[in-house]
């Protein structure tokens, strides 16, 4: 369910590209500092976006230092100086990765997932203490999500609602006091969460047919056994794409109301082009998903 929020590199300036990477690196280092080295490996771009977004509406511009890294200690790279937004994003990403592993364990009894969870146990205890409300929010929304799945919910909007509410909670960092900003971030998070949930379900259609997994798209559009998955996708493509694009429109409408102080062009790049590119790629499903690997 992760890694859908990335920039559209073709239209990024080198400076902007380094800036995005500097947030990513800082988040990664913070994960190592707050928790441990193994937790660090689960990092993905979605949370770099959260750190970047929250930092961009905070009071002060972030300083960037040149630092070495555990992977390449000699070569120094630009890293944003750690701030409260990066620490918060680090905690939230750790919580979500843990729950994802827990989910994999419950669903498939995957021992890889179970053993991967071990390094998280101490970190989870710490997170529960530091961000108790968010910890409870996440676990409650994931609980409703698994109930919806268990009951074979056949309304896409309803299934997406649980994950959307989870993201709504993540985006409203507890130290933000301004009522308007909370509303805007919340609606932006809701729509991003909704978008991620539905695009992920769409992306998994083929796999879910084969493995007979729960997928609200298959249920809402009454996939019948024996139907070619490509034929099914052709049948449902238009309404799903319309609803996803409208969701992105709502993300952008929220963003335009935020009082963004820094990094506007990078954020615009992600919201208007990066997300859309991800969606277009998944919809076109061409054989070549080349130049999108890692930054």
């Amino acid at each position, binding site marked *: 369910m992760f890694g859908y929020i990335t920039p559209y590199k073709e*239209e990024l300036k080198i400076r902007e590209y380094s800036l995005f990477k500097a947030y990513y690196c800082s988040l990664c280092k913070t994960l190592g500092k707050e928790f441990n080295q193994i937790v660090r490996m689960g990092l993905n771009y979605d949370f770099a976006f959260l750190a970047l977004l929250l930092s961009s509406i905070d009071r002060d511009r972030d300083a960037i230092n040149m630092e070495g890294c555990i992977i390449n200690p000699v070569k120094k790279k630009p890293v944003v100086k750690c701030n409260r937004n990066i620490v918060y994003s680090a905690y939230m990403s750790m919580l979500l990765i843990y729950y994802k592993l827990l989910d994999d364990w419950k669903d498939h009894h995957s021992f890889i997932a179970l053993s991967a969870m071990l390094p998280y146990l101490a970190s989870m205890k710490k997170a529960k203490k530091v961000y108790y409300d968010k910890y409870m929010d996440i676990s409650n929304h994931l609980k409703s999500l698994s109930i919806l799945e268990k009951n074979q919910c056949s*309304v896409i*909007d309803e299934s997406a609602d649980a994950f959307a509410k989870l993201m709504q909670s993540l985006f409203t960092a507890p130290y933000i006091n301004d009522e308007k900003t909370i*509303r805007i971030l919340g609606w932006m998070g809701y729509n991003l969460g909704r978008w991620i949930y539905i695009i992920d379900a769409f992306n998994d259609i083929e796999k879910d047919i084969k493995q007979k997994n729960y997928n609200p798209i298959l249920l809402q559009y009454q996939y019948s056994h024996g139907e070619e998955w490509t034929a099914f996708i052709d049948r449902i493509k238009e309404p799903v794409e319309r609803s996803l694009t409208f969701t992105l429109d709502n993300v952008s409408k929220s963003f335009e109301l935020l009082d963004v102080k820094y990094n506007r062009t990078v954020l615009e790049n992600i919201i208007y082009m990066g997300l859309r590119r991800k969606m277009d790629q998944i919809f076109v499903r061409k054989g070549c998903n080349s130049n999108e690997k890692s930054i």
Partner: protein
Amino acid sequence: MKNPYEVLGIREGASEEEIKRAYRDLARKYHPDQYANNPLSDLAQEKMKEINEAYDFLMKNKGSGYQQTNSGGNQSSYTGRSYGNNQYMHIRHLIEMGNVAEAERLLESITTRDAEWYFLKGAVYIRRGWYDQAYRYIQRAVEMNPGNAEYRAALNNISFRNTAYRNVGRGMGYGTGASPCDICTSLICADCCCECMGGDLISCC
């Protein structure tokens, strides 16, 4: 009042032409139609007001006379219209005020479900972020009463906003770069053209 130049996102001392262009772009961005049934529509209205004030102030102080700016457009406002059914009017008001839960509760208590019912249910769904359901309900309203311009406008608003979102990306350069495939195709094409004209671009073919 905030610095009007800052509000319009232009440098101080910008020309009248620049002010007008900035104003036009922002007015389009925060137009009420772009925020129809969005739970943040009140914030967009505030922003619009700020933009109008900044523009008015700058125009006034340019010495070019006071210009009344009309940006309201055809806001899809629910209030102030006459509808036969009192209950529906009340529900429209609730949606307008953002009290979606109460609006939905009242809608559920209505048993005769006409076009207006489906339309309002659709509006509730947009507010909640359930866009797929919203589209279905509004579409149903249009099917039941194809003559109603408001229902059709609400349905069109969804496609209109999807296009608007895509246009912003295109304006920023989305999809304009040539992919490796395009480059190859153009080269082969250029080679063919050259050969037709008697020259050669790629010598091996």
